[in-house]
Every structure is written in structure tokens, then in C-alpha cells.
């Protein structure tokens, strides 16, 4: 019988032993350096300032946010779309690349998947903040009022509730199922109370033939379910806009445009997060430039689609000969929000082009800095779409200029602090690299090899 290793290309060190993988991946757990505490303090400060702003809004109402008629979708919806988009790369890497049997996902998928969940948890804050009376946010969920009237299931906003909550649930199940064998490894490597906690999380996993058999089958199904979600969730988010008659929004281009943008920003965020992780934890055996180069290539592909979408929506606006449509696109490029538009174009379409040069997409500093520019550019893209269209609608008498105020900026800071809080906790309590799956990449220990070596 042949015993193939899955190590199709040299992306992990095949000299590693199974034991070494377990040791390396569990090494950083429960060890808190001074730098870690400094990071956590920074995050807590962000949460404190953002929390203060949220309390202001809770006490005084939505008026303290910078909304002014007719702009009632501003920074909160921008940031909601930004975070939902970030999540997409995690699911793409963990599910879609699993189905395509792409090997480079193995080292990075666990942390990318965690990023997805934390990003969706962050995004989910914003509809609640945006409705103002957030104690009524549960009205979003499908149940009838006293007169047996249900929500309008023909509304894209209701679709979004279903899309985002399904996405969160499915991603969380997929994430947890992937973690079970690794929780068992932690249980077996630790003692006392910690071991007991992980024994609970591992729910009795022993890695028996029966368990692996059903596990692998179910894992494939979860991946198959998560795959269409990568495409559907941001399509549904885009319909929040595209279903409205607002100029600049009402376009069939939106779903593919948003999905490409989501994967673009998500892959950039994976680079932003995983590069420090790989360097600080000295995990270059597991996450190295080979992985980052693939992520950069993914960004190049989706960035090209995105640039095409930017060009095409301007072209169609001009070609349609619709004065409102062409008016808004001219306004975006040269009107009050010109700076937003050009930040978007430079960060998303121009700066990432350096990655066409191999040296740039294998250089850690270049990868990291460009990935941050992409994150900035993608936030401004959503702001460009939302704010400019609402501030400049059909009636010139209603034109205005919206900018977020300090309360909204505080909430934006809160969202980043909230996301990084979860991520910082994650890297210290869960294995950020999938232990069992990395072992699959190694050639299995064989007696025949041992005999040959002895000769």
C-alpha cells in the first residue's frame, strides 16, 4: 500500500514530527508577554472610549451621531459592510479552498476562520447601534407582533438578517468542529483545571476510526454549505443598496462587485493579522511567505475584478445617459467627496499593483503595509458608496455634506478594539494553526522507512 503525504508542494517542513507540530502550535498558549498586555491595554482603552460614545448615544439618542437629513446611513452602515466583508476571506480559505483541495490553506485557515467569526460579531453590533433604540434590536428577528403581522420577508433588510445570522451560525459550527481534535490535543497536554475545561470543549473526542469517518464526511458537508455563503452573504448585503432606487446604488453589478471587494479586503486582513502572528510565535514552519504570496495573489485577482467594477459602474452611468446616475458618479469623483473616492482608488486599485512584482509579494514589510492600505481603501469604498449617494439625491434642495462626528468615530474605534480583543484572546486560548490538519501534510511515520534508514 502507498501512504501519500498531502504535502504536494514544499510549504511546511517535512522533517517535522507529529509531536513537534503539537508542541510548536501549543507553545504560545496561556503565556502572556509584556507586549501582549500592552496590546490588550490599548484594546481596552479603545473599548472604554468607544463604550463612552455608545453610552452617550444610548442616553441621548441617535441625534448625537452625525446623521443629518437625508443621510441616515452613515458610518455605522459603512462599518457594518466593512466588517461583514472582512469575514468573507476566512470562509473562502476554510471552506472553498478545502473543497478545491488547496494545500496552502492548511496553515492559515484556523486563524482566518477565527477572524471571520470575530468580524461578523463586530458587524452585528452595527445594525443594533444604527437603529438607535438598541434595546429593540430583537425586533429584527422573525416573530409576529401582537396583531399577527410578521416582518416583510420581501425586504432586503430582512434578507440580510437571515444572511448574516446564518453566516454567523454556520461559520461558528464549522470553526468549532475543526477545533475539536485540537481541543483534545490541548486536553491531553495540560493538567488540572485547564485540562478539564478543554476536556469539556473536546466533548470526549478520542480520534477513533468511527469518529474520523463521520467527522471527515460532516466536515465536507459543512464546507459545502459554507461555500455558497461566501457568495451569498455579501450579495445580500449589496442588495440592501441595489434594491433601492437611489442613484449610484441601483445596479445589477453590485453582488459580484461586493463579493470581490469582500474577498479582497478579507485576504488583506488575513495578511495584516497573520504576519505578526507568524513572526511573533516563530511559526515560519507553518505560516510563511508561501502562504502570504498566495493571499497576495488572491488580492490581485479580486482587486482586478474590483477595479473593473469601479470602471464599469462609471462607464455604465455615462453610457446609460441617465442624468441622475451620471450626476452621482461625477459627484463622487470630483464633488465634495472627491478625497474619499481617490483614497479608495489609490488604496484599492493602485497600491496593490506592486504585488505583481514577486519580490514585493514575498517581502513581509511590503505585504503588511500594502494590506493595511487595502483595509483603509475598502472602508473608504463603502463610505464612498453610502455617504455620497445619500448626500446627493434627486432633489438639489436636499443636498448636504455628511461627515461622521466624534461619537461615530468613537464607535468605529470601539469596533476595531472589540475585534482585536477577541483575536488577542483567541491566540492565547486556542491553537491558531490547525494541528491535526498540519499533521496531514507531513509524510506519515512508516516502519519501512525506518528499516531503510537503518540500512
Amino acid at each position, binding site marked *: 500500500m502507498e501512504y501519500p503525504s498531502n504535502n504536494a508542494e514544499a510549504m511546511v517542513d517535512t522533517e517535522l514530527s507529529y509531536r513537534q507540530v503539537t508542541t510548536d502550535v501549543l507553545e504560545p498558549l496561556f503565556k502572556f508577554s509584556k507586549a501582549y498586555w500592552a496590546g490588550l491595554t490599548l484594546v481596552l482603552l479603545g473599548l472604554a472610549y468607544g463604550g463612552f460614545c455608545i453610552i452617550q448615544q444610548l442616553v441621548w439618542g441617535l441625534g448625537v451621531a452625525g446623521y443629518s437629513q437625508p443621510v441616515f446611513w452613515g458610518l455605522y452602515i459603512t462599518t457594518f459592510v466593512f466588517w461583514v466583508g472582512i469575514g468573507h476571506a476566512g470562509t473562502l480559505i476554510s471552506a472553498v479552498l478545502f473543497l478545491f483541495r488547496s494545500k496552502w490553506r492548511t496553515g492559515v485557515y484556523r486563524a482566518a476562520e477565527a477572524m471571520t467569526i470575530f468580524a461578523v460579531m463586530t458587524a452585528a453590533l452595527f445594525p443594533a447601534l444604527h437603529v438607535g433604540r438598541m434595546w429593540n434590536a430583537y425586533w429584527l428577528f422573525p416573530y409576529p407582533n401582537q396583531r399577527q403581522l410578521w416582518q416583510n420577508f420581501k425586504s432586503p433588510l430582512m434578507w440580510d438578517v437571515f444572511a448574516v445570522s446564518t453566516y454567523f451560525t454556520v461559520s461558528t459550527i464549522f470553526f468549532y468542529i475543526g477545533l475539536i481534535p485540537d481541543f483534545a490535543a490541548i486536553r491531553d497536554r495540560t493538567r488540572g483545571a485547564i485540562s478539564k475545561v478543554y476536556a469539556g470543549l473536546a466533548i470526549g473526542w478520542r480520534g477513533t476510526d468511527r469518529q474520523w469517518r463521520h467527522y471527515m464526511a460532516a466536515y465536507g458537508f459543512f464546507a459545502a454549505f459554507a461555500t455558497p455563503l461566501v457568495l451569498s452573504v455579501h450579495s445580500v448585503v449589496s442588495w440592501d443598496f441595489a434594491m433601492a432606487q437611489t442613484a449610484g446604488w441601483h445596479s445589477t453589478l453590485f453582488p459580484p462587485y461586493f463579493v470581490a471587494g469582500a474577498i479582497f479586503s478579507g485576504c488583506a486582513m488575513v495578511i495584516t493579522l497573520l504576519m505578526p502572528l507568524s513572526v511573533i510565535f516563530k511559526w515560519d514552519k507553518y505560516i510563511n511567505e508561501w502562504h502570504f504570496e498566495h493571499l497576495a495573489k488572491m488580492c490581485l485577482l479580486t482587486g482586478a475584478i474590483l477595479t473593473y467594477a469601479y470602471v464599469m459602474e462609471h462607464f455604465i452611468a455615462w453610457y446609460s445617459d441617465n442624468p441622475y446616475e451620471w450626476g452621482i458618479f461625477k459627484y463622487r469623483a470630483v464633488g465634495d467627496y472627491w478625497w474619499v473616492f481617490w483614497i479608495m482608488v489609490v488604496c484599492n486599485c493602485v497600491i496593490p499593483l506592486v504585488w505583481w512584482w514577486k519580490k514585493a509579494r514575498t517581502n513581509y514589510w511590503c505585504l503588511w503595509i500594502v494590506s493595511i492600505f487595502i483595509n483603509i481603501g475598502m472602508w473608504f469604498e463603502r463610505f464612498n458608496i453610502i455617504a455620497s449617494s445619500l448626500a446627493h439625491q434627486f432633489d438639489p434642495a436636499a443636498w448636504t455634506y455628511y461627515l461622521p462626528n466624534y461619537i461615530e468615530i468613537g464607535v468605529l474605534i470601539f469596533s476595531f478594539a472589540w475585534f482585536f480583543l477577541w483575536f488577542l484572546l483567541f491566540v492565547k486560548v486556542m491553537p491558531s494553526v490547525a494541528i*491535526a490538519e498540519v499533521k496531514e501534510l507531513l509524510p506519515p511515520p512508516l516502519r519501512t522507512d525506518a528499516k531503510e534508514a537503518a540500512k
Partner: protein
Amino acid sequence: MSNVKAIFSHLDSLIDAIDELKSSGHTDFAVTAPLPRHEIEELIYEGQPSPVRWFTLTGALFGGIMGFALCSITHLNWPMIIPAGKPLVSIPAFIVITFESTVLWGCMFTLAGLLYHCRLPAKDMDPELEDPRLSDDVFGMVVRNLDSERAAEMKSILDGHGAIETSITGVRLA
């Protein structure tokens, strides 16, 4: 009745041992691995697919029907007059919720199927398998329900196949 526990450090030794067990007709055994190795699964289950797929199919169908029914029934229950002859039950408008519900329930049922077939959550499934090395770098095997003579024989067979450690353990109660 006794059980025999064996630890293997080499995958091919384990595969040979499973092969011999199967050919001897003894099927009451469990094998553990710290990673999924398809050779083990192929050998033991001979390519038979896991029944979890039926849970997946049932859940997805249930979810799809539930999603569409939720939208349709609630709209029919409160029939609003919609201009331009637009239907109350509108397939394009309900596609998204039908799809999301299909995915959600398909996943939930798959999870239930996985837990049911893996017999999880479990406590003390096989005391022999509570060995910390088994989630790390070795393969384990427990051959169950052997009389003492057969257990000794089994132990020597497994030793012969290159098990790095074998032991005969006591009576298994449950």
C-alpha cells in the same frame, strides 16, 4: 472478557494489524489516530460512505421548505394589496430566505448527525483510549471482548506487527 490495547508508532504497522484483524473475522475493535488518515477508514469501512449525509439531505430539505413556507404563509396570512398585480407569494423575493434556511438547517442537522454517529458528547468512551499520546504522535488500537486465551494470542499478533506497546486490560463493563 478482556481487551487488548496496542500502541503503534508507524502507520504501516497499524494498517497491517488492522488487515490481519479483519481477515481473522474479529471486528470488535477501535483504532485511533491523531490525524485523519484515509487508509484506516478505507480499510475498515471499505469505502462505505458515512450515513451523516442523510442527516444533511433531510436538514436541507426541511430548511428549504420551512424557509419558503415561513415567507409564503405569513404573507398569505396578512394579504396586503400590492399594486401592479404583484403576487403575494413571490418566488424571486423569497429565494434568499429559502436558501439561507436551507443552509442553516442543513448545517444543524449535519451537526446533529455528526454528534449522533460519533456518539458525542461522551465521557469515558473506552478507558483504554484515555491516553494522552493518542492525540499527539502515535496510533492506538483496542481489540475488545476477547477471552483470556484469545487475548494473549491477540497481544502476540499485535506485537508481531510492530506495536511499540501492548497490554491486556480488564473487564469492560458497559
